[in-house]
């Protein structure tokens, strides 16, 4: 197994930070080449006095010393981030969390909305056949160039609720069992509707404070009734462990 980089703080310059459909693509220059697994995340500091928590983003792509994130603007923190210009120095902390297991011959990678973010680096990291299944409310959420990047590494199918792009409906209606493993990232509603007998790994999103498992702020309740830390025991969990 690869030796993952120990988390540390990096000050990195923004190389790009621009809208891509309903998301933003942020690329940073790291001062070293690191080893991180798909599904791991970084905490980005929001340089505003009224915001005390960093924001967590899973890795979208990593190439040499360039690190990219794909994010949706949902509140004050991400709005601040989307306003940062090329050349601004961001303070980031990571890589954190466990990441996806990289097994399975024929895999389905299911992304709901901004949940597509960790699946690009995952698709690149998997050795077997990669199939993407992405869903959103409407087609304009997806940037054409962004989709073609995914399509370069696997077969891509799109589902939209208004059928403005691809098939109509929800991604969960189009999941079948012809795969060795399913990887999924998206809202809780999506996870609840995944009905299958094959192994499913999910990446959870929640508010995170320390990021390294100490403060117990980000716990999620398992089906056994235990509390697990999203930042340290996750963010990747077995679907049946949580839902």
């Amino acid at each position: 197994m690869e030796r993952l980089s120990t988390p540390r703080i990096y000050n990195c310059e923004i190389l790009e930070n621009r809208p891509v459909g309903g998301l933003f693509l942020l690329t940073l220059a790291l001062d070293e080449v690191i080893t991180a697994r798909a599904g791991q995340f970084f905490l980005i500091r929001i340089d505003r006095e009224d915001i005390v928590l960093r924001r967590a983003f899973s890795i979208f792509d990593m190439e040499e010393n360039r690190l990219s994130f794909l994010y949706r603007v949902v509140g004050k923190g991400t709005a601040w981030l989307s306003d940062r210009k090329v050349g601004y120095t961001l303070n980031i902390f990571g890589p954190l969390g466990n990441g996806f297991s990289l097994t399975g011959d024929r895999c389905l990678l299911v992304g709901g909305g901004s949940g597509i973010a960790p699946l690009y680096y995952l698709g690149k990291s998997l050795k077997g056949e990669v199939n993407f299944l992405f869903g959103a409310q409407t087609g304009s959420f997806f940037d054409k160039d962004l989709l073609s990047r995914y399509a370069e590494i696997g077969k891509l199918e799109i589902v939209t609720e208004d059928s403005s792009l691809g098939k109509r409906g929800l991604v969960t209606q189009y999941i079948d069992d012809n795969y060795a493993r399913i990887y999924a990232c998206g809202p809780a509603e999506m996870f609840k509707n995944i009905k299958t007998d094959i192994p499913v790994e999910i990446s959870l999103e929640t508010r995170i404070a320390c990021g390294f498992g100490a403060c117990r702020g980000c716990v999620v309740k398992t089906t056994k009734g235990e509390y697990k830390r999203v930042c340290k025991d996750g963010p990747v969990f077995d679907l049946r462990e949580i839902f």
Partner: protein
Amino acid sequence: MSWDLCGIKLRTPLVAGSGPLGWGKEFFEIFPTRGLGLFIPKTVTLNRKIGNPPPRIEETVGGLINSIGLENDGLCEWLKLEPLYRSLDIPVMSSIAGSTLEEIRKLGEVINELDYIAGIELNLSCPNVKGENWSNSPDSIFEATSTLRKVYKRPIFVKLAPKDNPLPYIMSAVEGGADGLTLFNTFPACKTINGGLSGPAIKPIYIRLLGEIRDRINIPIMASGGVFSASDVLDYMNLGINAVQIGTAFFKDPNIAEIIWRELKNLL
């Protein structure tokens, strides 16, 4: 430069307050002790506590509400961290809480035997555990403190809740045998979750409360509340506070103690 808390020598007046860094295992695997003068691990209870259901944290403007509920693996597991605490180049003070006087007494007896623990911070003020907030009555503060005093020989700091007119509560801790005080725990608050508010939002309140009582108390005080910068530390020290605890700021900058100390040492 050095600081003294009832005989505990600190190389800086910056204390890692109980909570944000857990018991320290995960944190010290990544970060050095640089800038810190004292480490207080997350509160230990006699038995394991599973804590409160999620969501446990929520951001507010300039603050953070938390309701962790003292989740911890209990005294037996905590004792296994002896090698870590011995390896640190700063003293370690243990934070403890009990739901009964008997629990407090047992914790005190066991920790009294640990020569690598410099003192105890008696947490009487967790706002997130039902029925365990000793801080709400001067009598129970006295009882809890004096119970620990009977069995624990090294310094005891009592951590109290913020109160309008806090003096009677503080005096009960002093009469119970406290050597020092940690003022204060988080401020009770609610956005969508009920919990304790921390961060820059509470600092002006705590500065006022401490300003009102500092010259009436002649034992050391560790202040806690919204310390994010060297100037925040100076605001507390100008009131005659002996050391300051850092908490929520670790979430913004895990190396906050080093950052603050770099600036602070030139200002003292």
